């Protein structure tokens, strides 16, 4: 009974903090922090960190004393959850600003998207660095390469990953095979990307003429090794949470299991699956190391995945940063590298958006109970 008595039984509005409380407490914390800072020497990060460290407990104490323990705890976590979001924005904003500041000049170079590195030479870079000419060279070959290689990797991994998840969730009765698959998928999540690359290179090396083993497809195979576990793990989680009653409703209508999976289970989980696939794509489209050892280093446009070297954007970025076209005038290379990075990010953003739109078209309508 005493436990019951400790439940809040006071009046409904008694002891509610006014709406502006967080702002007031925040302002107070900033002021106190500024005071502390002025004693030990002002700096911006320190100011904010100390203010935050003051804000969290003050909010908690304020809410706790006025609104009660329960509300105090709730406020505390609200502050933490919101802080997590803001905290994550910091690196994001920093990276994006870095990208924009460094990448826009490259992106705005004439022909940056429409030309390759075939005719960009050390001399043209030196001239450009000396202000005597435009920056030649572009990323067309790398852009096309990235798209093709990633597409190939997606075409390999998504069906395998999706079907494996279906097997794990819908078919396997937790037998040894499903355990083995789960186990190995887990292990695959931690393969260093370069090892995946080495594996892909070794595999194709032994399957085709070594002279021809460096090609876009080899890179796609290596990327698939990285992509599959991400697809499987995220899809499995999404399929698992589809309510069984929907499956049963479908079975009860005399619908075959595979149709139930395709038309009931997957559409219900599509938003999560799309998220997972996009995540997997985003991961591999930004990979450098495995491509370095599988696709060679092309400077011209190649649209054939099965023949000749290919360039991708991350490799392009890496090479331009690490081995500038002109060692004596690195400016143009750095400009191209950041420009390419910006393009890559825009590309992934576009993919992401597309995936969301597709998912939304199928997703369960968000209404009510």
């Amino acid at each position: 009974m005493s436990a019951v008595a400790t439940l809040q039984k006071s009046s409904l509005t008694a002891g509610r903090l006014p709406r502006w409380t967080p702002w007031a407490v925040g302002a107070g914390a900033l002021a106190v922090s500024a005071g502390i800072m002025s004693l030990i020497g002002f700096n911006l990060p320190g100011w904010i960190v100390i203010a935050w460290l003051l804000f969290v407990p003050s909010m908690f104490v304020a809410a706790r004393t006025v609104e009660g323990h329960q509300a105090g705890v709730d406020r505390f976590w609200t502050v933490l959850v919101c802080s997590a979001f803001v905290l994550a924005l910091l690196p994001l904003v920093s990276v994006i600003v870095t990208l924009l500041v460094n990448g826009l000049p490259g992106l705005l170079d004439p022909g940056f998207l429409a030309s390759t590195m075939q005719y960009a030479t050390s001399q043209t870079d030196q001239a450009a660095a000396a202000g005597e000419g435009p920056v030649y060279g572009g990323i067309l070959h790398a852009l096309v390469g990235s798209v093709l290689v990633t597409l190939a990797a997606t075409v390999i991994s998504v069906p395998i990953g999706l079907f494996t998840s279906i097997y794990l969730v819908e078919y396997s009765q937790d037998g040894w095979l499903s355990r083995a698959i789960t186990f190995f998928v887990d292990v695959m999540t931690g393969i260093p990307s370069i090892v995946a690359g080495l594996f892909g290179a070794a595999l194709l090396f032994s399957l085709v003429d070594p002279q021809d083993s460096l090609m876009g497809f080899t890179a796609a195979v290596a990327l698939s090794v990285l992509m599959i576990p991400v697809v499987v793990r995220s899809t499995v989680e999404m399929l698992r949470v589809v309510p069984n009653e929907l499956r049963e409703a479908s079975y009860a209508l005399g619908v075959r299991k595979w149709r139930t999976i395709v038309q009931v289970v997957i559409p219900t989980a599509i938003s999560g699956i799309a998220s997972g696939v996009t995540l997997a794509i985003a991961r591999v489209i930004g990979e450098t190391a495995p491509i370095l050892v599988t696709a060679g280093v092309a400077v011209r446009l190649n649209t054939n995945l099965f023949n000749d070297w290919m360039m991708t954007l991350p490799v392009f970025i890496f090479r331009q940063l690490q081995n500038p076209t002109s060692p004596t005038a690195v400016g143009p290379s750095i400009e191209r590298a950041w420009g390419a990075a910006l393009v890559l990010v825009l590309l992934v953003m576009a993919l992401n958006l597309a995936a969301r739109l597709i998912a939304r078209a199928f997703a369960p309508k968000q209404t009510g109970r």
Partner: protein
Amino acid sequence: MSKSIEAIDLDVYYGSFLAVEGVNIRIEPRTVTAFIGPSGCGKTTFLRTMNRMHEVLPNATVKGQLLLDAEDIYASGVDPVRVRSKVGMVFQRPNPFPTMSIRDNVLAGFRLNGIRMGKAQADEITERSLKGANLWNEVKDRLDKPGSGLSGGQQQRLCIARTIAVQPEVILMDEPCSALDPISTLAVEDLIGELKEHYTIVIVTHNMQQASRVSDKTAFFNIAGTGKPGKLIEFDYTDKIFSNPSVQSTEDYITGRFG
């Protein structure tokens, strides 16, 4: 079109837990059979074995025979999907498909099976089924809205519409009216009365009045105690069960003197 159902020494298990034991029952075609009994006695469980939904749960198994017009649906080689397309089911909890509109929910039995039909036919089936489930007037203006935006009772009637749309030969109903208001309940009861001319119907209900109103025969299930298996105690004409049951516990239950 209608089929008889016969269970012979049927035991139903969840893993190693025997939930229902030794059921012997013969349900005639074109009759309505009501299952009554206290909570947890295995009505739902037994009902689900009748269209092989039971085995959808992990580790759920069945022993014995269940004959659908003399064909054992648990014989090896029987395709459970075929069974289910002949034996439809309405669940205790309404479960419309959240990704589908109301119309598509009604047509789910066709759509999900990849059966194409003209718009006219689709509209006709939709209307007939929704009218059959007494839902048409309420939703006819929002057939393209998601089915999950309906009230509980509306959702349940939508599920009934979905089931009768595919015109199965046997319809199993697990407390179909527990979420319905009296009017819808009445409509569903009327519907059952009509459907019985062509179909075999089995209905689980907690409502004695309902059982006595709609059913030709009634089966009373009981359970001796927690952890014990549920058993079929008595199965007879509904009049007989409600007026003059031959087993004492049936009478206790019906008259509310139970427990």
